């Protein structure tokens, strides 16, 4: 195990004083450093959100409300939701992996607007501080959805503070999306046509489109809620003729596309992982690329499926339900293509691949239950129950979180120059998988049986499911902590990775690990298709495999 120092790279500098070193990181405009800043801050928020989740699950072990009062419980699950949605899932993969990899993957020296990139991070931190202040001052009890008129007229909690946090984070999201769009359009290396781009880029492009089109609408919705709360008059107040459901329309117009902001980058990561770890070009590349765009566009037309029981008209319900089923098609296309890629591939069960395979299974379950929910008749029965909770945790945690972890492991050697301990990686992937299913599968069952969400007191009959769920959540938590340990240890003790430890195609692997500040020594010129594996690569690699091979 070599622990020799890494060559000079983006993370080293010649700062001699502590303050100079601090400035070199806090005032950096290098997309790679900003990605690391995001990595640290996003993981911190994830831990905080996870702690809130632990409190929720602890309370739910018993049917009585013994650990915390109803009010406290409301604040706890709201904190969990706000932090996880706004400060982990939405920025997650784009800000960490996207920021680091997009310029590398397209052969550029940086993003289009490096200073704007830094501003994005500061806005993220600013928003986060507002949200944390709100939590410290007692939290907010409206649920992460801030439904009116409760949030505007009746709640006694720190609504405005939390909204300010989400509002500011929204601008961070918008600026990141803007940066990515311009970068992908204008800064590709010579020869890198659209259809030679890695699918990771296609996915982030689609995500960025959603970010710039959808986020402003929630910004204005939250702004109106804040104004109504401060001045005690507003457009969502039924007393003066307002309609609270208008808030829901505006909120979900963003928040549904927002879930595609969460999942599309994850799908991009999975495409990369599947290709590399089966040594094959992604089957149906163009279909997967276009399906990202299709998901982005169709995702804007389905928000009403969150409002079936909110007095939305039946006709709208039908239309939204139908289009929701349509939006599943591009996702299914991706899953089929990934599976087809695996077929006759030379499959390697390294940690990133374990996460990718887990993703496919869990995302299918999560996605299918989403289709169940899209049917108005079913949704009326299971809405606001744990069925919905299980559905979105399957896609968010079983989907996005697994892809995030898989991506971190896959590109860890590129970002840090070190390999992590593969045995521990595999163990934690399995722990996460087992813990996750134990946590959330019982929730499908109890939701169907009628357990409402956001309740901390429940009938005795549901306790067994809650106990299973909480037990699973502790295992899941362990599964999240273990990588923290071995990834951090690898920074000191990990094997030096070399430029391309996975023997993968892709421009990011053509430069050193970690890359130098300007990414490439000479401007790369692209002449090959994406995932330019030799057609026989899978067969050859399988035949030539020996212990110690890269994969």
């Amino acid at each position: 195990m070599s622990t020799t120092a890494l060559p000079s790279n983006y993370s080293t500098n010649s700062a001699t004083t502590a303050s100079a070193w601090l400035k070199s990181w806090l005032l950096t405009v290098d997309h790679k450093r900003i990605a690391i800043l995001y990595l640290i801050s996003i993981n911190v928020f994830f831990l905080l959100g996870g702690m809130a989740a632990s409190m929720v699950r602890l309370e739910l072990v018993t049917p009585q409300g013994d650990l915390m009062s109803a009010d406290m419980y409301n604040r706890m699950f709201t904190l969990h939701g706000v932090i996880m949605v706004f400060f982990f899932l939405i920025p997650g993969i784009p800000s960490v992996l996207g920021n680091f990899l997009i310029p590398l993957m397209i052969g550029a020296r940086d993003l289009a607007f490096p200073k704007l990139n830094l501003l994005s991070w500061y806005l993220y931190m600013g928003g986060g501080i507002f949200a944390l202040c709100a939590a410290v001052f007692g939290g907010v009890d409206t649920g992460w959805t801030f439904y009116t008129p409760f949030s505007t007229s009746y709640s006694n909690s720190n609504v405005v503070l939390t909204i300010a946090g989400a509002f500011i984070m929204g601008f961070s999201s918008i600026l990141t999306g803007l940066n990515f769009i311009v970068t992908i359009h204008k800064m590709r290396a010579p020869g890198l046509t659209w259809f030679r781009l890695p699918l990771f880029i296609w996915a982030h492009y689609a995500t960025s489109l959603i970010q710039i089109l959808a986020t402003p609408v929630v910004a204005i919705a939250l702004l109106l809620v804040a104004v109504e709360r401060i001045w005690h008059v507003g457009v969502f107040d039924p007393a003066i003729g307002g309609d609270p459901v208008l808030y829901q329309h505006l909120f979900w117009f963003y928040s549904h596309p927002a879930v595609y902001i969460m999942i599309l980058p994850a799908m991009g990561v999975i495409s990369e992982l599947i290709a590399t770890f089966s040594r094959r070009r992604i089957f149906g590349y163009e279909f997967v690329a276009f399906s990202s765009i299709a998901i982005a566009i169709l995702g804007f037309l389905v928000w009403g499926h969150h409002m079936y029981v909110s007095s939305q008209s039946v006709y709208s319900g039908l239309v939204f339900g139908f289009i929701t089923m349509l939006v599943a098609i591009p996702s299914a296309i991706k899953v089929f293509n990934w599976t087809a890629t695996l077929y006759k591939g030379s499959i390697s069960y390294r940690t990133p691949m374990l996460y990718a395979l887990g993703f496919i299974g869990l995302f299918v379950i999560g996605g299918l239950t989403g289709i169940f929910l899209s049917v108005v008749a079913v949704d009326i029965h299971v809405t606001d129950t744990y069925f919905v909770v299980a559905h979105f945790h399957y896609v968010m945690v079983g989907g996005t979180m697994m892809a995030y972890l898989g991506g971190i492991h896959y590109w860890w050697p590129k970002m840090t120059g070190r390999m992590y301990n593969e045995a521990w990686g595999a163990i934690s992937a399995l722990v996460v998988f087992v813990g996750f299913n134990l946590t959330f599968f019982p929730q499908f069952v109890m939701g169907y049986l009628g357990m409402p969400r956001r309740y901390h007191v429940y009938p005795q009959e549901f306790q067994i499911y809650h106990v299973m769920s909480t037990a699973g959540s502790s295992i899941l938590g362990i599964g999240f902590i273990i990588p923290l340990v071995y990834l951090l240890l690898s920074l000191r003790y990990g094997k030096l990775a070399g430029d391309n430890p996975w023997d993968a195609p892709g421009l990011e692997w053509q430069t050193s690990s970690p890359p130098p500040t300007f990414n490439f020594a000479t401007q790369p010129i692209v002449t090959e298709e994406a995932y330019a594996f030799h057609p026989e690569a899978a067969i050859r690699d399988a035949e030539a495999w020996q212990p110690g091979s890269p994969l």
Partner: protein
Amino acid sequence: MANARDIGHEGGHDREGSYGHIPVRTYWVVFSSLMVLMVLTVAAWYVEKHFVQLPEIVAVGIAMAIAIAKTALIIYFFMHVKVSSKLTQIFAVSAFVWLMILFVIVMGDYMARGWPPARGPLTQAPAPRAAAAPVSQGWRAL
């Protein structure tokens, strides 16, 4: 390495620089048109208010048509979209397309929903007005 930039630039800057030019005279013509349209919209309002009684949807329609015309002029000429790349034009248009998605679907829901109760759903006649005084007192009774 000089060849790096000669090779078929898919880097996105294949047509960099200017895409064309809008003469100054055009700006003045557009400006005059904008002023004329503004006068028209105020005049239409004045006429509709004092002389001709039009259904509200028509009056709003006229006002919006004029506003859209002004916007189109500003976007096309003042904002140089006429001489911009296809990409810029697509971005400019798509913003309004997305706005339409929001407007159409939400208004569709309101029209079909029966909210507010006085407006009623499309399939029903509006609830009959009670002629009795208590109703017309309404909120003023508070």
